[in-house]
């Protein structure tokens, strides 16, 4: 038997029709995650062609991108401030009714960011193919699933046929030795990786993250790493399932139970790259070299250690333009730079352990005068747990806003925006121009860095608070 990579094993299990020189493979999709922003036009196609949803049982629908995070608007009967968002939400409700789909709606206690509730409900499982009209679908690869973002036309294909046409991508192993040092997080690791390979370093590839540093990560941390695979241009990111994965999934609502659980674990245990398997490319990193990171530019590859300086690239007009947008000069010191907004949230860093870390830094402290801090849990379940464990009180006592779950200020679709010209240390995934609002200046960092920065009102190395 030929030695195979984890990706190849999952891919081969889902080939309905093999690829030929003239036609791509027909690949079966086990789980389709759907939300309000990238689905309306796909439902329109089904409607106009008289098609039904082939597998409602394999379609998990919720709303997260344009939903309000203000409690009064979610639960208090106050109208949703953005009329276009309210309309989009009503459209999804209507489409679910018409097409016979269960909807995890605005007031549902299972609602949250789609990439957070998939794992939370146990719908995300090893060996599955998972797609969603959202590029951060790569998150689910943390479980050894093959998970990738698709466009709205493909959302329609999956609704109608549960399949996609795909050419087989190449494989890229990112081998990470040693362990992250104390005070350094999974976010710092993935920002280092993107800084190293570039925002196009993974184009055309599925990444497998491997090695002792990855094996030592919790599921929450593995999800943070896989989440940002797309920021390196990769189709997907994967981690081989192991005891950590199984412990996370056991007992979750949609995970197998009893004998089915035992069979599943036996099957999942085989989902790893064989020792003789060959990747198309290999990149190696030492986790011990990773420091707390922060972005200084307008893409997630423009990152540096917090202790470092903004680099210089003389003669590069695009680089110069990015720094001009950010209001930073080459050589500028990153540490101690004043910020006006801090955002803890998003599918990258809004899980319970992220909130716990931010709360650890903030406990007994106040955020600096003039700083606005927004903490948006990744799901309503995380919200309840964070309240039960006292994290929410730490945030509100510190002067931060504690919100209902959703994508919120990661992309500002729901009106949670950073004003033009202001600096925002954000635990989200993209620092593109205008991502958090027209003219907003995003500095990507970990939850610990975000919390430490909120306390000082200046970019701060979280290790000062965590030692």
């Amino acid at each position: 038997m030929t030695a195979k990579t984890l990706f190849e094993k999952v891919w081969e299990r889902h080939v309905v029709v093999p690829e030929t020189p003239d036609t791509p493979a027909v690949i079966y999709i086990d789980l389709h995650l759907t939300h309000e922003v990238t689905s309306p036009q796909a439902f329109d196609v089904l409607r106009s062609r008289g098609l039904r949803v082939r597998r409602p049982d394999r379609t998990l629908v919720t709303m997260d991108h344009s939903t309000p995070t203000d409690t009064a608007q979610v639960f208090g009967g106050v109208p949703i401030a953005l009329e276009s968002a309210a309309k989009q939400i009503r459209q999804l409700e209507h489409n679910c009714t018409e097409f016979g789909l269960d909807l995890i709606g605005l007031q549902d206690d299972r609602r949250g960011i789609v990439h957070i509730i998939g794992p939370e409900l146990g719908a995300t499982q090893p060996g599955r193919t998972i797609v969603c009209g959202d590029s951060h679908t790569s998150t689910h690869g943390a479980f050894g699933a093959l998970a990738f973002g698709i466009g709205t036309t493909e959302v329609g294909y999956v609704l109608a046929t549960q399949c996609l046409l795909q050419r087989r991508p190449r494989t890229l192993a990112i081998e990470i030795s040693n362990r992250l040092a104390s005070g350094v997080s999974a976010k710092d690791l993935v920002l280092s990786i993107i800084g190293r390979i570039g925002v196009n370093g993974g184009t055309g590839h599925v990444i497998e993250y491997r090695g002792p540093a990855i094996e030592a990560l919790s599921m929450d941390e593995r999800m943070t790493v896989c989440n940002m695979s797309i920021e390196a241009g990769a189709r997907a990111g994967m981690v081989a399932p192991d005891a950590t994965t199984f412990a996370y999934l056991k007992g979750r609502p949609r995970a197998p139970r009893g004998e089915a659980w035992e069979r599943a674990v036996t099957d999942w245990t085989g989902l790893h790259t064989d020792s003789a398997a060959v990747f198309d490319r290999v990149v190696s990193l030492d986790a011990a070299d990773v420091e707390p990171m922060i972005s200084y530019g307008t893409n997630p590859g423009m990152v540096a250690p917090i202790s470092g300086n903004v680099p210089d690239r003389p003669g590069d007009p695009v680089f110069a333009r990015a720094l001009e947008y950010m209001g930073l000069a080459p050589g500028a010191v990153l540490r101690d730079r004043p910020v006006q907004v801090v955002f803890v949230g998003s599918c990258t860093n809004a899980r319970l352990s992220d909130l716990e870390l931010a709360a650890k830094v903030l406990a007994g402290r106040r955020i600096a005068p003039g700083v606005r801090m927004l903490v948006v849990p990744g799901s309503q379940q995380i919200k309840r747990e964070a309240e039960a464990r006292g994290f929410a009180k730490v945030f509100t006592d510190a002067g931060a806003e504690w919100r209902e779950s959703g994508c919120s200020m990661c992309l500002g679709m729901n009106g949670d925006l950073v004003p033009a010209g202001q600096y925002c240390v954000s635990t989200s995934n993209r620092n593109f121009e205008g991502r958090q609002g027209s003219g907003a200046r995003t500095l990507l960092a970990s939850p610990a860095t975000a919390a430490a920065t909120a306390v000082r009102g200046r970019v701060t190395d979280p290790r000062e608070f965590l030692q």
Partner: protein
Amino acid sequence: MSARTNPVTAIRSRTVVMPSGNIDTDQIIPARFLTTTTRDGLGAALFADWRYDAAGLPRPDFVLNRAEARGCQILVAGPNIGCGSSREHAPWALLDYGFRAVVSTEIADIFRSNSLKNGLLPVVVDEATHGWLLANPGAEITIDLETTTLRLPDGRTPRFPVEAFARYCLMNGVDELGYLLAHGEAITAFERSSS
């Protein structure tokens, strides 16, 4: 397979050049325009934050606001255009504005896939051709999908790669959904065998 759009065979147009690398889909269409439930009219939002100032007035220095950009159907961009968000609103906005092809040395995966499905031709060219196109904004060129070549004004005809099936769909104005639906029996058999 069923009809989708007008077939694409060749595009002849002057070029608009945006040399920046890593033009992400948040630039092509910012998120605040994504609360729409249709695909119409998004051309008005194309590159909104680069095209218009805070007061909503056109920025005269932005390339699409110059007279010579009017009517151009081919966008030549720096490497890795379309990175970031999977929003199909990006190709919808480009098409609604009037573009029919995007040319670069490298085009991000999801954006390329979305473009092909809407009849916006993603054309990946070699460094030398790209360099020439960047240095000659407004050049009138032809993108020939039949021969998978570009025709430059100096007579050169560099080839570009297109996935065979996507090319077939573009040239015949059909989409992949009909092809997938035609495999209904194979899909049912797969579902039976794997459950």
